[in-house]
């Protein structure tokens, strides 16, 4: 097993705000790692530090076998980075954008690379169109194509599928898996649980801290969360009532069903005991990633947030 990323003690502050606090990351080569966490938790800052856009306050290690952060410039050349916001030139055509990127990376055959990329994207006929006129899904495909044009070993994607329709997302993930199969290491931040489940591994970051790591199944198992599902006419209406009971850490409606979760199985079972009657049918289910993450957020929230 080769580690593409092996960094320790990564921290970054902006003024008094600690955006990333002592994070360590080990990511295997050729793996897709999902970077999850609520807005403002430090995902973008972490990605930017890894690709040399931000200088870490502390932290060291190796990225692609190069010393991090000392060899940031060399790391940069082998890394592809796709920003959260479309950051190619909207006033240049699709072809001009790709040509610019190809030349900046000093690709050997600029025109061939551009032609191939256009062909693969299916944009050959629209090559003269301004990038700003593309729809969200096409912009995202173009941005990904630009980010991998120089054949990087590491690909960092910052919420690449925000605002993109399901079909385009599906295509996008197929492409990411294709790239990973060829040996590219991918670190992708996302808010979508279905995307998290398509990653080989996930890393959950909250308030600048890394609070969960592993495959989706491992993260769920390690949470030691127990979840019961109640079905029956308008079982979802019990949410408020049940949430107040001791042992119930979360009660969330799922359509007409209700998920009740807690880490203490005995207390949880006691809490729902009086509701184990008609018309409700109770079954123990595996907690979803979402259940786990919401619970993680709750557990790790600072005291004042919990009180509120």
């Amino acid at each position, binding site marked *: 097993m080769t580690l593409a990323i092996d960094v320790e003690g990564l921290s970054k502050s902006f003024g008094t705000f600690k955006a990333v606090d002592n994070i360590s990351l080990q990511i295997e080569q050729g793996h897709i790692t999902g970077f999850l966490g609520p807005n403002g938790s430090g995902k973008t800052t972490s990605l930017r530090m890894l690709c040399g856009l*931000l200088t870490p306050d502390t932290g060291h290690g190796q990225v692609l076998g190069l010393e991090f952060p000392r060899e940031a*410039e060399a790391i*940069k050349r082998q890394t592809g980075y796709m*920003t959260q916001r479309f950051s190619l030139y909207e006033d240049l055509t699709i072809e001009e954008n790709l040509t*610019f990127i190809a*030349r*900046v990376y*000093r690709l050997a055959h600029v025109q061939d690379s551009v032609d191939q990329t256009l062909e693969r994207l299916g944009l050959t006929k629209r090559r003269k169109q301004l990038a700003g006129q593309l729809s969200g899904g096409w912009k995202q495909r173009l941005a990904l194509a630009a980010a991998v044009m120089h054949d990087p070993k590491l690909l960092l994607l910052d919420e690449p599928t925000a605002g993109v329709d399901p079909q385009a997302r599906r295509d996008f993930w197929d492409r990411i898996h294709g790239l990973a199969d060829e040996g590219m290491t991918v670190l992708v931040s996302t808010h979508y649980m279905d995307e998290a489940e398509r990653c080989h591994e996930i890393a959950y970051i909250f308030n600048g801290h890394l609070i969960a790591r592993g495959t989706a199944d491992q993260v769920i198992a390690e949470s030691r969360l127990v979840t019961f599902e109640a079905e029956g006419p308008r079982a979802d209406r019990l949410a408020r009532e049940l949430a107040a009971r001791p042992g119930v850490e979360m009660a969330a409606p799922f359509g007409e069903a209700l998920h009740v979760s807690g880490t203490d199985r005995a207390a949880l079972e006691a809490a729902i005991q009086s509701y184990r009657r008609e018309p409700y049918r109770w079954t123990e289910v595996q907690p979803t990633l979402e259940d786990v993450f919401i619970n993680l957020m709750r557990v790790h929230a600072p005291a004042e947030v919990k009180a509120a």
Partner: protein
Amino acid sequence: MMGLSLSRMMAVLTKEFTQLVRDRLTYAMIIGIPIVQLLLFGYAINTDPKHLPTAVLVQDQGQFSRSILGSLQNSEYFRIVHVARSPAEMDKLIERGAVQFAITIPGDFTRRVVRRDKPQILVEADASDPAATGSAVAALSSLPIEGLKHDLKGPLASAAPGPQPFEVVIQRRYNPENITSYNIVPGLVATILTMTLVMMTSLAMTRETERGTMETLLSTPLRPIEVMVGKLTPFVVVGIIQAALIISMARILFGVPMAGGWAALILGLFLFIVGSLALGFLVSTVARNQLQAMQMSFFYFLPSILLSGFLFPFRGMPEWAQWLGTILPVTHMLRVVRGAMLKGVGLAEAAPSLGALALFVVIVAGLAVKQYRTTLD
């Protein structure tokens, strides 16, 4: 450290040219800046400049010469800063721009006044800036009577009643017909270049930050110097085309003479273009968005027009305003371009202004490079 790559530079340059051709600028007007500028210039501008530096060459030791000098000073228009010893020295002073006027009182002045011989006083004015000399020249015609009233008494009183006991001969040098466009048109080279170069460079750079494309630029292997050269070169071309156009138009449409100072003019333009671009780059490292860049450019642009001697006589301003004006590269560029076109000054005479421009380039480019961030920190 990686080597610089010409092809990467060319990639940025091509991109920049393409964008430049497509971009349509919209201008935003702000309230705060006009107020500040109004207050500043309301006090600074003076269309009736006084205390203009004057050199005198007194070849006559008589009492009337002394009276004339005294009344020159009393008029407040003239400030005698040089007492020359020879006509050649006078020529040099006025050519260098050290003085606005050179006044020669001939050797036999007192004697000829007494003999009612209508002697002459020669006043040479640097009229390349007509507004600066106009009022002073007008004041000259009333001077002699004032100056000599006290002296022409007793036996000499008979010399007084005539309208003029002597003649003042005024020679306007460099712009004898007093044509204002000779002054303004060459000056436009400096102001138009300032406007275009500072503003467009600062906007082109901040646009990258504002649209998020800076993040892409910074994540590529581009070196800061490659970005700088690539981004600034199109504007050097813009500057050269504009300069050539304005100078051609000055010659063809306005008939502004070209007295022959090509070397000083070309060197001055080069320094000025580079300096203005560097300033635009510096602005972009401070401004967070295009609006701020625009505000800063305007804040720089207005004093460049009003305090540099472009529209209003530099010497008419109070000393603190002249001091501010001296910091502006436009002031020095104006001196170079007017000197070169109207006086035909060479590199040696233009050296102080060229030196000031070079100093500006070094300081501003140094600051810009120091300020430029290679990360998003």
